[in-house]
């Protein structure tokens, strides 16, 4: 049997096993390894230790003696490299955290099992459940779907992005209240700058900021832009089609009408990071904790890091300000504070026999899937997110319990209640070109190119990204 035949057999075998899997873990006995990422229990060196995932594992082990759940408790600095390297050796973890968009684009096919067949079957650990996917967030499920229909992650939470601020530094600059409009935000930034305080000190990450602006500017076309694939939420396919049609590109006047506003804002920031890679954003948090910058646009997971870092100064949060006609004639004025809520820590994939030799053991795939079904219930998701306190659960019936007791969290709590309607471009999957878009964005914000030059370059980037997406995924965009 050659390698290609063996691979096909393994993949078909794993799919067949998934679709034939039942509730009971079968006769397989052994240890299931898992990378629980931000929900890892007993992670060394963490002040506020998490316990819930271990409790869930203990309950499962008690139910099925002979099966052990072992959590990986070492830091993984680069998840995708870990997945590639371990998969190439056939030693990937049985269950592991990975970004759905990476599994759909840059990571090799065959590192994660397609969970879609299992999602269509009942989860026996959810009373009365007819299909596991019935308890999931439909938009999130659709957003993580591969163009082939495969779904590689069990996703159940999101990161909420907001603007944290140092109340002391605001007071020092004579700012009495948090900004609610762009005019106020830019005015406050200028005051902070004049007072010798960095308003922000970060790489202005295009994938995050653009979602707020585009979700406002394109709000009237929301249904159209998310509907090309016939599923809720904006999938990579929806994005590629919109690029192909020239809607989510500089050909549409709305697309870059917000760039000058963002430039006014970033003109008050130190220039060092404006052209940098968002992966090099590490100084931003340190500078906020060290009280060198007054604001920090970051995910809700930073609240826990602030607690761990022993932040003593009063921290508040305010939402992305609404756009008005002053900022763009195309502004629709909708509240887009909740537009960027990226996928979070409860996002787990299951190894294939190709990436993990132990999955070839008879019955192991069913057992691992059964473990995922066990912890993948709304009840357990609620327990996990409530303890961790920095992610928002997405499954219907679950509620957010953020560990923000030391902070003025009213804005974040209000934001979570907003509907999650989000339009983005160049960021749903790695080969939709956000890296190159970030370069154009940085060059414009730092004053190295004009808006017209930026438009031209952005158009080139997006055309190439859509073509790459279509080529890699064998999609005919002209069909839509």
């Amino acid at each position, binding site marked *: 049997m050659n*390698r*290609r035949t063996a*691979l096909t057999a393994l993949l078909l075998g794993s799919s067949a096993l998934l679709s034939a899997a039942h509730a009971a873990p079968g006769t397989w006995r052994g240890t299931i390894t898992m990378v629980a990422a931000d929900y890892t229990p007993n992670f060394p060196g963490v002040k506020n230790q998490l316990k819930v995932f271990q409790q869930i594992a203990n309950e499962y082990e008690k139910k099925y003696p002979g099966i052990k759940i072992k959590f990986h408790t070492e830091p993984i600095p680069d998840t*995708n*490299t870990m997945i*590639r390297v371990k*998969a*190439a050796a056939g030693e990937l973890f049985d269950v592991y955290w990975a970004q759905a968009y990476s599994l759909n*684009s*840059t*990571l*090799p*096919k*065959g*590192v994660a099992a397609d969970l879609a067949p299992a999602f269509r079957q009942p989860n026996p650990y959810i009373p009365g459940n007819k299909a596991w996917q019935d308890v999931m967030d439909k938009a999130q499920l659709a957003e993580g779907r591969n163009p082939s229909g495969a779904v590689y992650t069990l996703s159940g939470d999101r990161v909420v992005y907001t603007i944290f601020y140092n109340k002391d530094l605001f007071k020092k600059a004579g700012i009495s209240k948090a900004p609610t409009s762009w005019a106020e935000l830019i005015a406050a930034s200028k005051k902070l700058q004049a007072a010798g305080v960095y308003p922000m000190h970060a790489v202005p990450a295009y994938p995050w900021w653009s979602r707020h602006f585009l979700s406002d500017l394109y709000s009237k076309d929301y249904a159209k832009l998310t509907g090309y694939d016939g599923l809720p939420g904006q999938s990579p396919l929806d994005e590629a089609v919109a690029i192909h049609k020239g809607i989510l590109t500089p050909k549409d006047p709305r697309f870059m009408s917000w760039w000058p506003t963002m430039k006014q804002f970033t003109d008050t920031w*130190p*220039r*060092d*990071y*404006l*052209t*940098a*890679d968002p*992966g*090099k954003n590490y100084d931003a948090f340190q500078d906020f904790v060290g009280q060198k910058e007054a604001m920090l646009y970051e995910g809700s997971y930073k609240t826990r890091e602030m607690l761990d870092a022993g932040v003593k100064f009063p921290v508040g949060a305010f939402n992305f300000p609404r756009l008005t006609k002053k900022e763009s004639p195309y502004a629709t004025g909708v509240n887009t504070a909740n537009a960027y809520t990226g996928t979070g820590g409860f996002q787990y994939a299951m190894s294939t026999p*190709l*990436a993990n030799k132990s999955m070839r053991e008879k019955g192991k795939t069913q057992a691992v899937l059964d473990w995922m079904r066990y912890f993948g219930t709304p009840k357990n998701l609620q327990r996990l997110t409530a303890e961790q306190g920095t992610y928002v659960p997405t499954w219907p019936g679950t509620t957010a319990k953020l560990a923000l007791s030391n902070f003025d969290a009213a804005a974040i709590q209000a934001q979570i209640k907003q509907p999650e309607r989000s339009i983005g471009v160049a960021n749903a999957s*790695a*080969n939709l070109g956000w*890296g190159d878009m970030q*370069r*154009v964005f*940085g*060059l414009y914000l*730092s004053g*190295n*190119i004009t808006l017209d030059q930026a438009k031209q370059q952005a158009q*080139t980037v997006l055309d190439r990204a859509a073509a790459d997406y279509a080529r890699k995924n064998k999609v005919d965009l002209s069909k839509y």
Partner: protein
Amino acid sequence: MTALPGFRSAPASRRSLLARLRGGWPAYLFLLPTLLLVGYFSYFPAYTAITRAFTDWDGLNVPTFTGLENFQRAVTDPVMGQATLNMAIWVGLGLLLAVVPPLLISELIFHLRGKKRQYAYRTLFVLPIVIPSLVLLLVWGAFYRSDGLLNALLGAVGLEGLRHDWLSDPDTALLSLIFLGFPYVDAFNFLLLYAGLQNIPDEVFDAARIDGATGWRRVLRIDLPLLRPQLGLIALLAIIGNVQYFISPLVLTSGGPGFATTVPALLMYQTATRDGEYGYAMAMAVLLMIVVVALTGLSRLLGRGNR
């Protein structure tokens, strides 16, 4: 009649390969593990890179043969065009930096009076070799910041107008990275040239002095011609090293602003590790290898032509 030194005797040259292997078996036996390791860790990956450059490969699954598609994509990619131009600038200036400052310093130290003084200066220039290169890069990254040492120094000496955002301006970012590491004295190159100067017999210097060849004239007429082997080696290593180099753009600028500091080796690295396109990255690696071979051949040819 005895055989001339350096010439094999006629019967020996006619001995079969097998007989020669049999005769030298202990030596071959000792070499075998090394050869096997070199073969497995050096030649086999190179063979893999060349063969997989013609495929679409994600690093895990079975590669799909795509012919010349990857090469076509690489040579028509505008980013690769800019990266190649950046590399050409880097190789040219890198060559100057690899040769000129170490030569200047080795000349100055070699002609210092007093062995102790020579030793002290030599140590001073070689000592930085113990600093890990990544630390050096990060320190230089801090120097280049808008509030970094470089701008502070310019401000302190009244050259406010020259203060600059060194790494975030596409006009200065590449040059900033190339000139990173002042005083640019590569310790290895410096020691190589210094040893070369030490190898020149005193009689040659004495004769030159009598003929009036002192100062710059001596450097041009005596030192440089006699340092040609060392200079040739440094040039060769500088070309190969700079074509393959991508660490400082990776650490400090990620190839930006825009693509101002992107070089083909960085593009290759990002294509493989970030985008997971190993087949395409290997095509880039093969193209780089061709460039290295061509430039090396050219430098050897020029070196030979000057003899």
